[in-house]
């Protein structure tokens, strides 16, 4: 496998509180190469979103971060506000959970998608627009010109998330961080967006850090998985190994509590059986 594009070493994030120091992330390390999907899975409060925010330098003011984050061979953990802007977007693209809140409601899609490239790469508006069109095609939008002229509220939830992904692809980042990208979407739309992420990985060779609470999504989408709880990585490895032969008790518990359609039917059946006796 190629050298890791993103390398996180001994990352910790703490918050000072009245009751002492709170460890949101407690000494985690992982690598992400291009062309692979690494999933961070955990329940709320496990630190998975904090991890992505640290990589993007988007942590709240009060947070204190230590450790080393390397992107494309460069240590970014100590970069200043100006320098990090070259990393954001250009090296690492980010997709958030709620596409409506991350898109500007009063700007057309064309305007929002060209802003980044014009600012970062110094390309002309016209070239940026051409790239935007290609990116929209890349995410499976059949009529890019129509979408470019529209405002976010005119698009459905799934289309908005596609536009978000397309916008983050415009700068050709090495990796994408997708923080619960499908949580707000309907299952059939979720399925399309997940197919799209896998397609981007295969076709463009993007590395994807997929943050999710849904272990079913991990099972069918990710190559590797890190199970997080209380700011720590408890178990990490290839998806088949971690989910197939879980070693940590928490991973086992997470798998046990994950409800599938088949399990649901079985458990209900058992319940009815007990009620009858």
């Amino acid at each position, binding site marked *: 496998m190629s050298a890791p594009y993103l390398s996180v070493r001994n990352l910790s994030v703490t918050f000072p509180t009245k009751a002492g120091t709170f460890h949101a992330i407690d000494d985690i390390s992982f690598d992400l190469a291009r062309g692979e999907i690494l999933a961070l899975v955990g*329940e*709320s409060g496990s630190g998975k979103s904090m991890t992505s925010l640290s990589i993007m330098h988007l942590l709240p003011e009060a947070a204190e971060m230590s450790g080393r984050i390397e992107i494309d061979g460069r240590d970014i953990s100590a970069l200043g506000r100006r320098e990090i802007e070259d990393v954001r977007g250009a090296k690492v693209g980010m997709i958030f959970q709620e596409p409506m809140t991350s898109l500007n409601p009063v700007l057309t899609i064309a305007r929002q998608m060209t802003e980044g490239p014009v600012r970062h790469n110094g390309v002309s508006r016209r070239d940026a627009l051409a790239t935007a069109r290609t990116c929209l095609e890349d995410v*499976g939008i059949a009529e890019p010109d129509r979408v470019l002229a529209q405002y976010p509220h005119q698009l459905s*939830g799934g289309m908005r998330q596609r536009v978000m992904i397309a916008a983050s692809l415009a700068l050709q980042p090495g990796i994408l961080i997708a923080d619960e990208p499908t949580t707000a979407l*309907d*299952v*059939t*739309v*979720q*399925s399309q967006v*997940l*197919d*799209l992420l*896998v*397609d*981007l*990985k*295969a*076709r463009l060779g993007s590395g994807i850090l997929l943050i999710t*609470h*849904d*272990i*079913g*999504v991990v*099972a*069918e*989408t990710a190559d590797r998985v890190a199970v997080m709880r209380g700011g720590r990585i408890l178990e990490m490895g290839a998806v088949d190994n971690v*989910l197939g032969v879980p070693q940590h008790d928490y991973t086992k*518990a*997470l798998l046990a*509590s*994950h*409800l*599938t*359609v*088949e*399990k*649901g*039917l079985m*458990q*209900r059946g058992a*319940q009815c059986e007990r*009620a009858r006796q």
Partner: protein
Amino acid sequence: MTSKPLLRVEGLRKSFSANRHTVHALNGVSLALEQGETLGIIGESGSGKSTLGRIAVGLETPTAGELHVEGMRIDTMSPRLRRDKLRRCQMIFQDPYSSLNPRLPVGRQIGEGLFARGESDWRAIDATVADLLDRVGLKREFAKRYPHEFSGGQRQRIAIARALAPDPHIVVADEPVSALDVSIQAQILDLLAELKKQGDLSYIFISHDMAVVARLCDRVAVMHRGRIVECGSVSAIIENPQHPYTRNLLDAVPRFGRRRTGQKPVVVRLPLHNDGDCFIDVGEGHVVLQSASSE
């Protein structure tokens, strides 16, 4: 029919209009909830499932159609009588953070349902509230606390206690576990099942999550664009789905042992249904909406 259904809707329609646009949330929905059953309503956003639930508890009034509760048609009743009847229908909402009043102790919020029923002695109400907290697995002393002192799962238990306070026969639960972590989801589903066993309860359980529906429901109605497209026992729907939309929905659920390849799946054209379309029975009460034009 020998036993009257607890709740029955017939040809229910609801449209909302805003900015000269009319949105048809329900396009003629007929459905019956039998005594003691859990009826699941599954569908995606905009399918009309929440509107149906809100009409069943009286939070919305239908544009057309009939609503019968315990054998009586109530949509034509006077508001006062209707309110009285609808006290038997209570609701649990999705978001336990926004559905509780942050400025009232939870005991007070649970007690309001009893007060509204005509109980005026708050000492008696407090005793009943403590019993209710007990039933939903919380400590009796919690009545004095405020919502922010509880976790999401605990708040949903409080919302359940509040729904149970007026001694309802029908509880409509609208995505009650969607906002919760998986480990908490199972606890709340078990609690709902347990409460049903104890009392004289029937549920309408609204959800987008097939796995949750499979776990809790006896029957399930699949909704799409304001219509029920398929209805039957939960095992029939899951093991033998007939409508293309139901198949799409089931196929989209993430599962173990399948890998996404990035290949675009074959897009299935969903039939557009008209008002004239009829259900066909494929056995044991499993019905599918058949498009008249496609045949």
